[in-house]
């Protein structure tokens, strides 16, 4: 399907160019907000919404999302997969007959486009909820606006404000805590030095804080390095990291997949894989694209923090995720992967919250966002622990992860380490655990 899409686009672009030049979740997923009266599962299988096979034709419940889209960075799959899930819900009774009308807006990492997208959705289209937001800057730009408007976003975070503010809760744990998890795995190799390398972009300094604390706890010397992106010379970067780490050191990377690949490929081409004890990477490296690009030779040598379950997991929500992607997700360009898993999970949580409002509810921004905020104990096999929103001034519901590694044949990612908690030496993880203990 993807190949045909790409082939079609190649043909289209070459055709246009020629013409121009010629002319010139959860085992049960029965989360509960206000109540747990409606479950998105039947006979042990997960289903979309009511799962009754009846097409929803009632008045729409408008939802939306904002995703980054620019050359080299594209998070639209998250919103597109949330839409795919809502399409499946609409084909299965909707929200008690109401259909979900979903609008995805994009921004290009500028404050203007991020702000305009939020205003368009909330004041123009008049959405009553935001589900599947994922952007490099959007949460930082818009979180105060969301607080003013009373919107509680269910998103997939990257920016600091996607975790540290009251009106944004993420399916994933984001780069800081994912880097923590990657560092924990690397430190389990008992290295004598840890090198943490990430992009030299404003705001990423925050991501290094947790790794520094964890390295200190393990009494392992730590060094933070940064590289300008896009990386022009991955070989030199890899060589520098290996020399700095030394034979008994470990290297932890926190980059987008293309940039991480340049470094890992640079290491591979120079035969440097085994010149350190281990390589580790935060969640963005968890793609089969990366495993296939690297090929064999990295099994157990590269540990990648995985905030979500394997896409191939044999469990009810994971099975539904694959089925929805196949039937409704033709627009999801990246196919199976953590991006579409996050969109699916966000859509499923939002659907559960809407169903829990009951069949006679009025769907306004106020009532819908109150339902989102009330989500707690949402179980899904895609996450290690139940997800919740709650009243906290910050949100870190996902703080337990896995570690994956490229398979021995170098084709896909496979699990290397089961669910483990991110070290509470990182203060917000400790604070999140306290909140959870009170629930």
């Amino acid at each position, binding site marked *: 399907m993807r190949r045909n899409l790409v082939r079609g686009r190649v043909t289209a672009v070459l055709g246009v160019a020629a013409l121009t030049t010629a002319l010139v979740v959860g085992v049960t997923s029965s989360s509960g907000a206000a109540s747990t009266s409606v479950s998105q599962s039947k006979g042990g299988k997960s289903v979309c919404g009511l799962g009754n096979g009846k097409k929803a034709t009632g008045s729409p419940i408008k939802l939306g999302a904002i995703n980054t889209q620019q050359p080299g960075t594209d998070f639209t799959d998250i919103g597109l997969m949330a839409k795919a899930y809502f399409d499946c819900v609409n084909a299965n009774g909707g929200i008690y007959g109401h259909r979900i009308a979903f609008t995805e807006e994009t921004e290009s990492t500028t404050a203007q486009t991020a702000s305009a997208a939020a205003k368009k959705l909330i004041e123009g289209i008049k959405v009553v909820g935001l589900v599947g937001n994922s952007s490099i800057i959007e949460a930082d730009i818009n979180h105060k606006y969301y607080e003013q408007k009373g919107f509680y976003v269910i998103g997939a975070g990257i920016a600091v404000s996607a975790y540290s503010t009251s009106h944004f809760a993420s399916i994933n744990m984001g780069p800081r805590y994912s880097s923590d998890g990657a560092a924990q795995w690397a430190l389990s190799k008992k290295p004598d030095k840890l090198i943490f390398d990430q992009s030299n972009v404003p705001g990423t300094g925050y991501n290094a804080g947790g790794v520094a604390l964890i390295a200190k706890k393990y009494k392992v010397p730590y060094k933070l390095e940064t590289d300008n992106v896009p990386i022009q010379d*991955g070989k030199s970067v890899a060589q520098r990291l290996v020399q700095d780490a030394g034979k008994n050191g470990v290297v932890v990377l926190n980059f987008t997949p293309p940039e991480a690949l340049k470094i890992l*490929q640079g290491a591979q081409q120079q035969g440097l894989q085994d010149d350190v004890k281990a390589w580790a990477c935060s969640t963005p490296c968890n793609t089969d*694209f990366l495993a296939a690009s690297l090929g064999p030779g990295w099994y157990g040598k590269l540990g990648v923090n995985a905030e979500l379950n394997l896409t191939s997991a044999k469990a009810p929500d994971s099975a539904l995720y694959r089925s929805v992607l196949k039937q409704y997700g033709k627009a999801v360009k990246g196919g199976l992967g953590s991006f579409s898993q996050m969109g699916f999970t966000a859509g499923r949580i939002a659907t559960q919250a809407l169903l829990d409002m009951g069949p006679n509810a009025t769907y306004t921004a106020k009532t819908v966002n109150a339902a989102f905020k009330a989500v707690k104990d949402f179980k899904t096999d895609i996450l290690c622990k139940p997800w919740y929103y709650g009243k906290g001034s910050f949100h870190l519901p996902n703080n337990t992860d896995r570690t994956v590694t490229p398979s021995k044949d170098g084709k896909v990612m496979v699990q290397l380490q089961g669910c483990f908690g991110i070290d509470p030496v990182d203060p917000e993880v400790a604070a999140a655990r306290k909140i959870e203990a009170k629930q």
Partner: protein
Amino acid sequence: MPSWTQLQPFIVTGLSLGGVYALSGTGIVVLYRTTGVLNLAFGAIGMFGAFLSWQLIHEEGWPQGLGFLAAVAFSVVAMWLYGMVFGPPLAQRDPLVKASATLGFALILLGASSWIWSAAGGATRFQPIPTDTHHFSVGEAMVNWTQVIALAVGVLVVVLTGALLRFTRLGTAMRALANDREVSAVLGVPVRRVEAVAWLWAGVLSGVSGLLLSDLVGLDQVTLTFIVLISSVAAALIARLRSILGTLVAGLGIGLVDACAQPFSGISRYHDMAPFVLALVGLLFVTRKGGALAGRRIV
């Protein structure tokens, strides 16, 4: 302070990348000397060709050799078509207008490739060249044959292009065009034909550069379109957009400075500035000499 042993791998990397910068820079210089166009789409055309070959090899199952040939063929056709369609109407315009037009072409190619080969879902791509897996050691550095080829092709192209310009009638015609297009036309130089050859040759160099860089640097749209272009243009500018040999030396210099700055912790994070700084110096130098970008009097 890194030891000599630690520095050796960076020298190898720097020389291989420098060879490709020289290769690209040579294409830029030849085209500029012949047509007066500073082609800012040089990287984008090579990038698109590299992505196209990835598509053909990894998704359509073409043999690797054919896929690589398709990349070069695309670059040649795209470059030649641009030159033939937009060259004549822009021939009398200011060099800045001509350069801006190529930048527009680069952005179109960048947008199209980002749409076709989207980064959605964390998509990453890599296009290995078979010579990657064959290594030998020089001192403490491991060298693969792709790196050797990158340097060798860079040097070979410089030598061949220099000989072409100096010893052939076509080269003489190219140099005549660089001096004065109208007078050359009056004297019987087949302007369109000579320019077509320059666009074709630039296309070949762009395609080969794109393929080599997609392996050495990575198959990444923005990097191949702009970041690598800056190094290549910097090499061409340092050579005052006229000296092929100077372009080789400058390209190798940029590659070496960029790579060898990596292990110095004090300046490591600024290593990417090397082409910018050297380009700036080159621009100041060219301006001082009478302004290559203000016209073609300098060539």
